[in-house]
């Protein structure tokens, strides 16, 4: 093996017609069947041969595709149905708590749970947003922006007060929900959402927080109009109750003039929050423009009463060892 000009020595590896010393590969390169690229010791040559092998594979794949498509067209109506690719959503393990829209038991439960007064229009949501002790700049700004997104919400500083003492005071002042944003190392990383007159408390892990100025191509500030709410993909019972929790944050009568929409989209147990302004260009076309902060939530625990970490009755806790075993099993 001469090591002087690596490319020329490739001739010994198989018939390469018309290949002088140039990189562009010829049309049909035949690799002998026992040839393996990894056996070449020289890195430069090995890399070159690997690229050629890759090109050849791609060509073969394309040719195969074309052939198959021709066959499909030739068969016309008798062609077998197209194969659906497997996705994680397709392969999801069926959850027995999936809510059927016509389920009476679920409907009855929802008529009598803690959100019933909200959904019967008896209460108007009033939200208190606060943080953990000593919030830093980013968290404070995020709280402010969150307060602009959620109508009828107030931001109060924590000042070292105990949550258990705050909660009765909030109830006395007619607040319906409490949001506590937990901070670690100057960035918000947790969210506790508590429905107040002893409603459920959900604890989330928050990630990918983007403030308004970090969002590219954003619009102007959100206005005071009440936004619409979109809840996507909350299928199981647990997901359903979390979805209702989120819906209970927003007043029931969205002002369509404002053309604002807040979205909670659940995908593989991650809840993505986005806030957009939309416009209907036609009946088939809508344009959306992102305003407002965005963040992702992942549910860690759901507790029956208000916030009580020691003696609370937990409806659902994320147990890592049990629940993270399967990649196809989701709980929301």
């Amino acid at each position, binding site marked *: 093996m001469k090591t002087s000009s690596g490319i020329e020595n490739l001739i010994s590896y198989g018939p390469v017609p018309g290949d002088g010393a140039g990189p562009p590969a010829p049309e049909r390169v035949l690799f002998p069947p026992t040839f393996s690229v990894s056996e070449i010791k020289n890195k430069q040559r090995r890399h070159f041969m690997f690229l050629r092998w890759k090109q050849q594979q791609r060509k073969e794949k394309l040719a195969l595709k074309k052939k198959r498509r021709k066959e499909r067209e030739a068969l016309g109506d008798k062609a077998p149905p197209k194969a659906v690719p497997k*996705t994680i959503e397709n392969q999801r393990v069926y959850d027995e708590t999936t809510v059927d829209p016509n389920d009476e038991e679920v409907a009855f439960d929802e008529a009598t749970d803690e959100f019933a007064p909200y959904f019967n229009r008896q209460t108007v949501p009033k939200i208190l947003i606060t943080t953990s002790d000593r919030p830093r700049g980013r968290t404070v700004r995020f709280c402010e922006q969150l307060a602009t997104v959620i109508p009828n919400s107030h931001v109060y500083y924590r000042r070292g007060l105990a949550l258990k003492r705050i909660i009765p005071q909030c109830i006395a002042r007619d607040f319906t929900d409490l949001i506590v944003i937990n901070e670690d190392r100057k960035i918000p990383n947790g969210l506790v959402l508590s429905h107040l007159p002893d409603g459920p408390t959900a604890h989330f892990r928050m*990630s990918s927080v983007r403030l308004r100025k970090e969002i590219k191509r954003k619009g102007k500030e959100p206005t005071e109009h009440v936004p619409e709410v979109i809840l*996507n993909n909350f299928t199981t019972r647990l997901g359903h109750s979390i979805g209702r929790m989120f819906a209970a944050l927003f007043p029931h009568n969205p002002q369509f003039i404002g053309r604002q929409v807040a979205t909670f989209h659940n995908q*593989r147990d991650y809840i993505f929050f986005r806030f957009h302004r*939309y416009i209907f260009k036609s009946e088939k076309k*809508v*344009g959306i423009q992102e305003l407002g902060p965005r963040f992702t939530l992942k549910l860690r625990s759901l507790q029956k009463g208000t916030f009580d970490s020691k003696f609370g009755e937990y409806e659902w806790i994320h147990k890592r060892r049990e629940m993270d075993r399967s990649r196809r099993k989701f709980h929301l």
Partner: protein
Amino acid sequence: MHSDDVVWSMLGNRQFCSYKMTTKTQNFCRNEYNLTGLCNRSSCPLANSQYATVREEKGRCYLYMKTIERAAFPRRLWERVLLSKNYEKALEEIDENLIYWPRFIRHKCKQRFTKITQYLIRIRKLTLKRQRKLVPLRRKIERRENRREEKALIAAQLDNAIEKELLERLKQDTYGDIYNFPIHAFDKALQQQEAESESESDAEREEEDEDDEDVDKREFVEAEDSELSDFEDMDKLETSSEEEQEEEEEVEKKASHSKWKGKTPLKGPARRKRPYIEIEYEEETEPSTKTKTA
């Protein structure tokens, strides 16, 4: 004979004592029976054969005493007395036990006892308040969750989902009379118009098979593909197509602008339309320039 002065001159005064910690300003004594914590002739438990300390164990305070009579029996050297929980009573007990002892040791014992009770009170107060629990982050798990979140974000196709939902709501008449779109009539005509004029402002899509695009658009693409492979071109096209839509609302302009992310081939029809529209613009702006010069 056990002489304190000898012990002190050997150990304390020089650097031989293993309990001695020197710093720039002071010398400390790490001996657990030391009364003050400093390395002095009067505070050294090794160099004083008659010595006393106060120490606390599990919230209760004890008075430890050492006398010269027991100097030969290390196991029984330190005598321990439990002090009462009542502060004043305990002080009296210290006085009682250390009667006839040097003033320095008595005083320092009482001072130490006071300090200990103060910090015990503080501990009890703090345990009643909220205690912050630090939960360690596991690096592997954090990384796994971040990766899964990114993949979930890609799989979610949020913009598409939101748009679909909004269109659904429009169809189901939740918006009432605000928007006057003829929903079922003139469908096909509208579709054709939109395919031409608004194919460039389509929603972002993932990389998909070309099979998924409409047949009409397909024809345009294949004709124009070679010209529009440059990304620099895309910038120019963006700005010019912004001009196109200046007449329309700001929101729409921004929304459509945000859609032109990766679809260079779809600029084909825009390119064909642009000369048509630009001509209109030139007509409009020409008179204004004329007036300015004049």
